[in-house]
């Protein structure tokens, strides 16, 4: 039903009410004290319909609002008090105005008619209100909104009221009496079921106890005050017998209801606290689930935890003691000052006898020597651990003031709660961790991207030299760098230039390593254009790096230069792994002296740095690598090692540079299977004037045939 139609209905009800009131008024003006039975009945019918419309109209307004039980009771009490005062007032005032009411009723003047009309209307309104409130109370917290018992009772009210007209025929009074008695039985029956008591708090129950006594007494006073002698009742029953009867029945109902209410409340008082707590536990369960799913920020979470802890335990104050490194610090304190929390903390956690408690406990502050320094006189504290993965992360502390102490029930409530809190905190930690992890992964993506762009995209091709390079990045960028420089590339054809190469490993990992790498590339790229000597280049590079490198960062590097015309290679090494020279079935370490870049910016670096020059022989192979190869691990955490590396180089030395590097990588992959690669792997193989044997074509025709097709034919010069 929409609002508009309700409003129309309202209006109709109001109109009906006003019309019936008007009719009643007119009727009363003419036949106030007529004694004929027919007119009496007519009078009762008009009064009845007026009261009915009154009730219906008020009921409509009433049912739109939701009332708490206590506010209903309070309203009821006020109405009762109004009746009480009005009766008191009218009893003394009306006789003064109109003399003996019973006489006046027989021959009322106009003034009396008006006054009594308004007077009765006023009371009729109050009584119908009383009835409605009692009905509302009856159905409060009931599962159904109508009950056969209540409806029956109301019908008997009406019957008892209407049949009271029959008092003019004393022989028929048994009819009215029967209805009246049945009404009273139904009143008692309906009053017994008061189900809303259980749902109010202990505090409310206590005030209800007092209220119910007062209201019950008021009903009784109002009931017995309506004796046949007093003017209030005389006006009332003189106006309408059934209304007077209805008034009495409602008073009885009220008195009975509140008498029962008083005793019910009384019996509920002892269990009120336990009930309160259970109710709180149920509602805190909702908080728990909220806690676990919704609150993810750590600070917000701890605030929420202490807030709920207060509600769960009936405590006066709560806070969390969080473990920072090895010190416990109070955070998220509620209703307690930082200083107080800190003092109590000191007492409990920095006590010598304190060992990390894995279950909750109650700590009395009776013997706390600094208790008088506290702003509030706290008496006991419950300490419950907050654990993640069986590790104590902190404690939840709740405390009570004054003479109140905690019992085991409180402790177990807090215990349960701290378990929930632990889960919530763990959740938020995991989330934070995964966000952090994602951030790191993004960062590593950037680092890998930098590295990929820095490293040469393809190997250079020379007539006398074949170059093959392999780079396999580690998940965390390892800081490997290698590069090739074609020097004097603008020489006229026929004249041979020089070829520079560098291999380096930046200390550290990730984005910081990638940045240093980018810088190193810039340095070598520009230096290789102006300086030829590998030693000079490394000295210069070291000087440049002084400006930008952190103390703890350094770079190992090796720089070499091949002179195609003179057929020599010159090499300088700054802390890098030795270069390998494979010649005539032997592997030699080329290890000129030199310390890493960025370790020393003084003369020492320069003094210590050597440069060696080697003649290049046919089929010579120079191997550059980073420690990612020799330190590749197998499942037993053993290193791949130099020996194995050198053996592979020797065994395959007849093959092409690409084939050899493939072979090395294959072996390392085999060796390190099931193991995450922890460092970048870089391998550069340089082969001098290699003459590939045609025979090998016959041995592995498929493979070699393909190699030749791929442009490797130039090696067969």
């Amino acid at each position, binding site marked *: 039903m929409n609002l508009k139609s309700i409003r129309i209905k309202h209006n109709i009800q109001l109109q009906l009410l006003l019309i019936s009131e008007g009719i009643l008024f007119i009727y009363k003006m003419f036949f106030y004290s007529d004694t004929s039975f027919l007119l009496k009945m007519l009078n009762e019918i008009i009064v009845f319909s007026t009261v009915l419309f009154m009730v219906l109209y008020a009921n409509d307004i009433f049912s739109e609002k939701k009332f708490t039980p206590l506010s209903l009771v309070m309203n009821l009490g006020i109405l009762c008090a109004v009746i009480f005062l009005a009766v008191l007032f009218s009893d003394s005032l009306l006789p003064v105005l109109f003399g003996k009411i019973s006489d006046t009723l027989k021959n009322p003047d106009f003034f009396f008619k008006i006054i009594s009309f308004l007077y009765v209307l006023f009371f009729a309104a109050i009584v119908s209100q009383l009835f409605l409130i009692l009905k509302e109370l009856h159905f409060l917290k009931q599962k159904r909104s109508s009950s056969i018992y209540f409806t029956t009772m109301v019908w008997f009210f009406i019957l008892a009221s209407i049949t009271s007209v029959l008092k003019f025929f004393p022989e028929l009074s048994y009819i009215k009496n029967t209805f009246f008695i049945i009404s009273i039985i139904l009143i008692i029956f309906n009053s017994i079921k008061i189900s809303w008591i259980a749902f109010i708090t202990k505090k409310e129950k206590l005030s209800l106890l007092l209220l119910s006594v007062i209201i019950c007494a008021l009903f009784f006073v109002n009931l017995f005050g309506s004796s046949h002698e007093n003017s209030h009742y005389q006006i009332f029953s003189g106006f309408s017998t059934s209304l007077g009867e209805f008034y009495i029945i409602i008073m009885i109902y009220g008195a009975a209801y509140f008498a029962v209410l008083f005793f019910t409340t009384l019996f509920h008082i002892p269990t009120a606290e336990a009930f309160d707590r259970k109710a709180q536990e149920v509602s805190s369960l909702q908080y728990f689930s909220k806690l676990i799913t919704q609150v993810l920020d750590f600070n917000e979470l701890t605030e929420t935890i202490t807030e709920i802890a207060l509600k769960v335990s009936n405590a006066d104050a709560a806070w969390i003691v969080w473990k920072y490194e090895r010190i416990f610090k109070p955070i998220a304190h509620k209703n307690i000052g930082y200083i107080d929390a800190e003092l109590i903390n000191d007492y409990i956690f920095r006590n010598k006898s304190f060992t990390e408690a894995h279950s909750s406990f109650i700590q009395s502050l009776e013997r706390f020597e600094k208790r008088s320094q506290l702003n509030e006189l706290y008496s006991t504290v419950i300490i419950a651990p907050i654990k993640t993965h069986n590790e104590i992360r902190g404690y939840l502390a709740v405390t009570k003031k004054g003479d109140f102490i905690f019992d085991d029930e409180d402790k177990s409530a807090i215990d349960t709660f701290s378990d929930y809190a632990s889960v919530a905190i763990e959740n938020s930690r995991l989330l934070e961790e995964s966000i952090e992890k994602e951030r790191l992964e993004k960062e590593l993506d950037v680092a890998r991207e930098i590295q990929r762009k820095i490293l040469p995209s393809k190997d250079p091709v020379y007539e006398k030299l074949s170059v093959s390079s392999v780079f396999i990045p580690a998940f965390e960028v390892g800081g490997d760098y290698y590069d090739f420089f074609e020097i004097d590339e603008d020489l006229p054809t026929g004249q041979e230039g020089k070829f520079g190469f560098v291999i380096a490993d930046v200390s550290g990992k990730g984005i910081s390593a990638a940045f240093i790498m980018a810088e190193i590339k810039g340095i070598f790229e520009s230096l290789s254009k102006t300086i030829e000597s590998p030693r000079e280049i490394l000295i210069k590079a070291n000087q440049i790096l002084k400006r930008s490198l952190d103390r703890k*960062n350094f770079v190992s590097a090796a720089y070499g230069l091949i002179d195609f015309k003179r057929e020599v290679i010159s090499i300088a090494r700054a802390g890098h792994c030795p270069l390998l020279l494979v010649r005539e079935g032997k592997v030699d370490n080329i290890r000129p002296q030199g*310390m*890493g870049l960025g370790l020393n910016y003084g003369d*020492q670096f320069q003094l210590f740095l050597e440069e060696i020059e080697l003649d290049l022989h046919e089929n010579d192979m120079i191997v550059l690598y980073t420690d990612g190869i020799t330190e590749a691990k197998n499942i037993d955490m053993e290193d791949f090692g130099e020996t194995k590396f050198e053996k592979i180089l020797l065994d395959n030395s007849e093959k092409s540079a690409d084939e050899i590097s493939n072979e090395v990588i294959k072996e390392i992959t085999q060796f390190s299977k099931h193991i995450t690669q922890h460092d970048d792997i870089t391998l550069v193989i340089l082969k001098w004037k290699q003459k590939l044997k045609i025979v090998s074509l016959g041995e592995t025709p498929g493979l070699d045939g393909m190699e030749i097709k791929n442009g490797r034919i130039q090696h067969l010069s």
Partner: protein
Amino acid sequence: MAEFNTSVKDQGDVSLLYLNGYLDAHTASVLENNFSDLIAKDKFKIVVNFKDLVYISSAGLGVFMAFIEKIRENNGDIKLTSMSDKVYNIFDLLGFPLLYEIYKSEDEAVKKFEEINKLEK
């Protein structure tokens, strides 16, 4: 995951720092904290024992570089002892023997500090 831990012992005015396990980019912060603690306590004569160190990465080496200047400014030193061949090789490749005194045994290193003490008196 590879583990790394350290322990510190005082011998006279020399602090002995024992390394154990794998020292890499992930565990370097443990060693950094050790050095920071020692410096905070004005202990600048430090002997690092590598007897139980299985592996050291470039990030691990960087830790020594990070603190050596500060320590030497305060008339102290970091002396390295009891390295396995493998670990020594890593130090050697980078030229660390030029920058640090590396001894076969802890006693030699401690004695070296004591000699300097005597000279100063």
